[in-house]
């Protein structure tokens, strides 16, 4: 099962290596990890996408909580949430195919952010599935490079993502 784990951490030296090291040291799978400071510069939120059965994910969450610099750890996939990932895609685009590609970019609600006689850079944001579909469609033109941020996720509703408690999850299920 794919899980998105949101980790509120103290914005300290070495926290990222503790979290990343925990995954490699204990053999947990990591699909993506993105980190950014919150509205309060003392804290950051890491969004980690991982795969594993219930037992493994339970251990991952417990081990993350055990780190001294982690304040809250939540499995965002347990609640209603929104997930987004941004990609920058550089694709071959000779003048002949430009218009065609523009059309595709519009359909996917992307943006052209760089243009040369030979190529385009497109900025696109979406779920993992949408982004994958976009790349599949562009494949035929020749993709030069794809750079992606990894997923970030936020819970729906007025509560902060890392504030959700077990009770909230239960209430939502009912």
């Amino acid at each position, binding site marked *: 099962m794919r899980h998105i784990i949101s980790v509120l951490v*103290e914005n300290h030296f*070495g926290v990222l290596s503790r979290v990343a*090291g925990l995954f490699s040291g204990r053999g947990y799978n990591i699909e993506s990890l993105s980190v950014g400071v919150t509205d309060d510069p003392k804290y950051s939120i890491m969004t980690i996408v991982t795969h594993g059965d219930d037992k493994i994910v*339970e*251990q991952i969450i*417990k081990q993350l909580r055990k*780190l*001294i*610099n982690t*304040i809250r750890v939540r499995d965002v996939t347990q609640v209603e949430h929104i997930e987004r990932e941004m990609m920058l895609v550089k694709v071959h685009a000779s003048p002949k195919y430009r218009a065609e590609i523009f059309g595709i970019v519009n359909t996917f609600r992307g943006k052209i952010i760089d243009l040369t006689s030979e190529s385009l850079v497109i900025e696109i944001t979406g779920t993992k599935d949408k982004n994958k579909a976009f790349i599949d469609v562009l494949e035929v033109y020749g993709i030069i490079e794809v750079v992606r941020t990894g997923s970030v996720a936020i819970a729906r509703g007025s509560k902060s993502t890392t504030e959700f408690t077990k009770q909230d999850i239960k209430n939502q299920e009912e």
Partner: protein
Amino acid sequence: MSRTGAEALVECLKKQKVDVVFGYPGGVLLGIYDTLFDADILHVLPRHEQGGVHAADGYARATGKVGVCFGTSGPGATNLVTGIANAYMDSVPLVAFTGQVPTALIGGDAFQEADIIGITRPIVKHSYLVQNVDDLPKIINEAFYIASTGRPGPVVIDLPKDVVASKTKAKCNGEINLPGYNPTYEGHPLQIKKLLKELSEAKKPVIYAGGGVIISGATDELVKLSEQLSIPVVNSFLGLGGFPSAHENYVGWLGMHGNYASNMAMTETDFILAIGTRFSDRSTGRLDGFAPNAKIAHIDIDPASISKIVKIDIPIVGDCKKVLNQINQYIDKFNWDKNREQRKSWIKQIKVWNTERPFSYKKSDKVIKPQFVVEEICRLTDGEAIIATEVGQNQMWAGQFYKFKHPRQFISSGGLGTMGFGFPAAIGAKLGRPDKQVFDIAGDGSFLMNMQEICTAVQYRVGVKVAILNNKFLGMIRQWQHLFFNKRYSYSCLECQPDFIKLAEAYGCVGLRAEKPSEVADVISESLKIDDKPVLMDFRVDREENVYPMVAAGAALNEMIFGE
């Protein structure tokens, strides 16, 4: 008041009531050592940093206080690594200070530079690189707090040379602010009631008590629970001493070299109450054969230890002592008569197992059996000594044949299995508990790994007794080669070894030897008379004795191998 970081450090150590530290100086530590020179703290100079960190570990296990050690930057710090990993695996409170090159040089491959924070990251409870001297007192406070609370563990503080040389006014009694660290001490009342409800239904209950009982000082509460409900108690290896071994409810210890009754009880039980233990593979044997018919409740202060290896039906996060107290308060609210008869016959069954197959060995009046040496040490110290061990056969026989009465009496590298641990740990233990007789039950292989510490023990007049069960083999390796590799003793024979008596004399301490069973008691008695210097005892034991019973790797607990 402004003082240097080094002075602030020593002031903070005093505030933490540290009375002994184990450290080895070096270039970047000179400032700190200049301050330690006048400090009212006993500084013990080991002859290798590994000896220092194991001694701090042994001190912590024997006293329950935080062990403190120092190593300089680079090799001094990396020499601490094994000891830090050892303390991490066995949940020992330890603060390790390491020197670091000046901040401006960090990352430039300076002389004696090593990224010790990076190197130790997976084997510490937490670590700090001090970047600003004003943070130092707060960091020391936090480090001692983290090391000693919750599930204890080692904390590393890396001290760049320039940071400890600069001045600070920061106070040592600063507040601790750790928003991400709040261990749970009280058990959840609903879970405790659920546990008691299930326990009252059980027909063949057993308590499985680990090192957590010792760490939290929960022996009295455990004895009370076991007595009130007549529940037999099985220890994990590191749990030895946490429940008095002479108690009528005591079954023994489980696992690879545990006793028959414990392994059978854990296999046949219908309800396990696990307390402060982590279901190590050496304890459980093959998992699908572990307690196949049991419901399992688990009390532990570390939530990550619960359901990590074995699925737990009733998890209770909390401090063992506090939770056991809570349980004892609720006992009367449940009906304990339901399965009275079945429980009686369960206890009887365990007694039968214990009578059928106790720990035993083939006695001899010609050759010294290693088990006999341990039995004699137990007899002549009245079971009151602190016993440190090395790793391997010596460790298992110490666990099997010394009958422990008290918590903090048994000091052994359980999780990491560090050869060379026992002797320096015994030195640390003796410094912490000078009132006690302290033995290191050793193998010749393990002892040679840190024998340089004889010098330390002589210098500080530490009267530890080293009982070398000398078989000129890496005995446990040889045993596995005997059983599983067709007796091909590949590199496990220690053909060359020093004359341990001359070695002792060379260091200025006492060496004794026994070659016949009739000499064993005299040698031990002789050693007990000496308390101002170490004693090395060279017991020439039966070279190819094996440890039994044995649950082979991959076997279930009830699939034990027995000797002849």
